[in-house]
């Protein structure tokens, strides 16, 4: 090889990793919940990179040991590759574990938080009781609605393929047996659904699954699931919608 060729090159790219938001510092509870989730889609989660989001925990000033959490995640089969929303001490722990701190996204979080708290802030400024402090700085960022574009799939989803959408997922073609489609939002399949469909995978219980020809192996909304064994013969091969009501999956025909 001629030695004037460069030995390396940097290219910009994006890297897909799910975010794990912790709401509670109960390690045993977290472990149980994780194992349950992993069982639902072992192939999907196996060796998956993961970003740990501690903002919810820190918002409620709960104590959590980042080292312990990292060890637990590795044991269950994840590769933690980032921390966001951590406090000074947690970020220091992350650095010692060579886990990078995701700061860019923290700003996005801030915007979302601001959006949620907007009425309160507005009220305070109306009464002019608000001191010119931090909140004003937050206010300077224009409130933006949280909008995640839907993912559109037009090619068949074949056995062994997995699709993950961070918003809604719309599939125009068939989903084969042995394929897996997951969305944090709703799932629409305007064709035959033979594989697994998991909507609201981050716990959105309002998510729904709509499909044109229902022959699924498994359906799940926010972790509640049914396998083909439990699926009603009546709705088999029909256009249906599936939603959650008091932790029960309801399947109704769309007429």
């Amino acid at each position, binding site marked *: 090889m001629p030695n004037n060729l460069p030995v390396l090159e940097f290219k910009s790219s994006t890297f897909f990793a799910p975010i794990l938001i912790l709401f509670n510092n109960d390690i045993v509870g977290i472990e149980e919940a994780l194992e349950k989730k992993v069982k639902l889609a072992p192939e999907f989660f196996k060796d998956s990179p993961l970003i740990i989001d501690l903002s919810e925990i820190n918002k409620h000033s709960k104590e959590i040991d980042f080292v312990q959490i990292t060890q637990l995640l590795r044991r269950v089969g994840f590769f933690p590759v980032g921390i966001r929303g951590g406090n000074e001490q947690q970020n220091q722990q992350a650095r010692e574990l060579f886990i990078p701190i995701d700061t860019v996204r923290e700003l996005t979080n801030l915007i979302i938080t601001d959006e949620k708290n907007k009425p309160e802030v507005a009220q305070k400024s109306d009464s002019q009781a608000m001191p010119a402090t931090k909140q004003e700085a937050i206010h300077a960022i224009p409130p933006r609605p949280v909008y995640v574009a839907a993912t559109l799939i037009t*090619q068949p989803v*074949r*056995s062994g*393929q997995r699709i993950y959408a961070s918003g809604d997922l719309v599939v125009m073609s068939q989903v*084969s047996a*042995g394929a897996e489609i997951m969305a944090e939002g709703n799932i629409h399949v305007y064709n035959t659904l033979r594989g697994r469909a998991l909507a609201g995978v981050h716990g959105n219980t309002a998510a729904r699954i709509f499909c044109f020809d229902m022959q699924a192996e498994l359906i799940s909304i926010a972790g509640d699931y049914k396998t083909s064994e439990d699926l009603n013969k009546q709705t088999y091969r029909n256009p249906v919608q599936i939603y959650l009501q008091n932790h029960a999956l309801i399947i109704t025909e769309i007429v």
Partner: protein
Amino acid sequence: MARIIVVTSGKGGVGKTTTSAAIAMGLAKKGHKTAVIDFDVGLRNLDLILGCERRVVYDFINVINGEASLNQALIRDKNCNLLYILPASQTRDKEALTQEGVGKVLDELSKDFEYIVCDSPAGIEKGANLALYFADDAFVVTNPEISSVRDSDRMLGILSSKSRRAERGEEPIKEYLLLTRYDPDRVKNGEMLSLDDVQEILSLQLLGIIPESKSVLTASNAGVPVILDEKSEAGQAYADIVSRYLGEDRPHRFIESKKGFFSKLFGGKK
């Protein structure tokens, strides 16, 4: 530039090598300079079916490793001088097959040939993935049984996501269905899936149906691709497939049982 065809299936023993030999011969017979490559490192079957096993000196891996030139390794077929075979190695281990190496060989062949047919090994491992990686067209060989159909479906997923075309965001590989070892009588008895059953799951463009036929075994024992046996149904089915692939319009045959056809003709009144 050559057009690269991969003959693939996922499941083993469904008729990939039989098909590779037949269509490569069919294309060459129609006047297209064609090379057929055996990707099944360690097994080496293609040269037997083409009857050139005693003329193998160098193989695919020798060429990849730079131990032989392409011209030294390519074997010209004894029946058709537009057909060349690049045999697999029987002795080397599969690790010698690298994406870079395969790419180089295909690039070099592309300069000189019109069609390159890649006979894929079974499975969804490295060999099969390399055989399909550079493909333009895929002939998905499927038997009318559920496990074969499932594996084909899986292979189609790999074709659409792990090929060079997919990685570069180019136009996807063209996928065709070849339903082989089809036996209409057994379909009728419910022992085999029908064409419709298979298509309900795969929904692919059907390139042809190859009936179950004793002539396949006879031909492979003689080391002559079955397509040269013009009297046999399997030979005719492969000839149809080559013609359809080249754009000719040929109605599909061998879907209905012969017995069924004759009883319809003569036994209609019963």
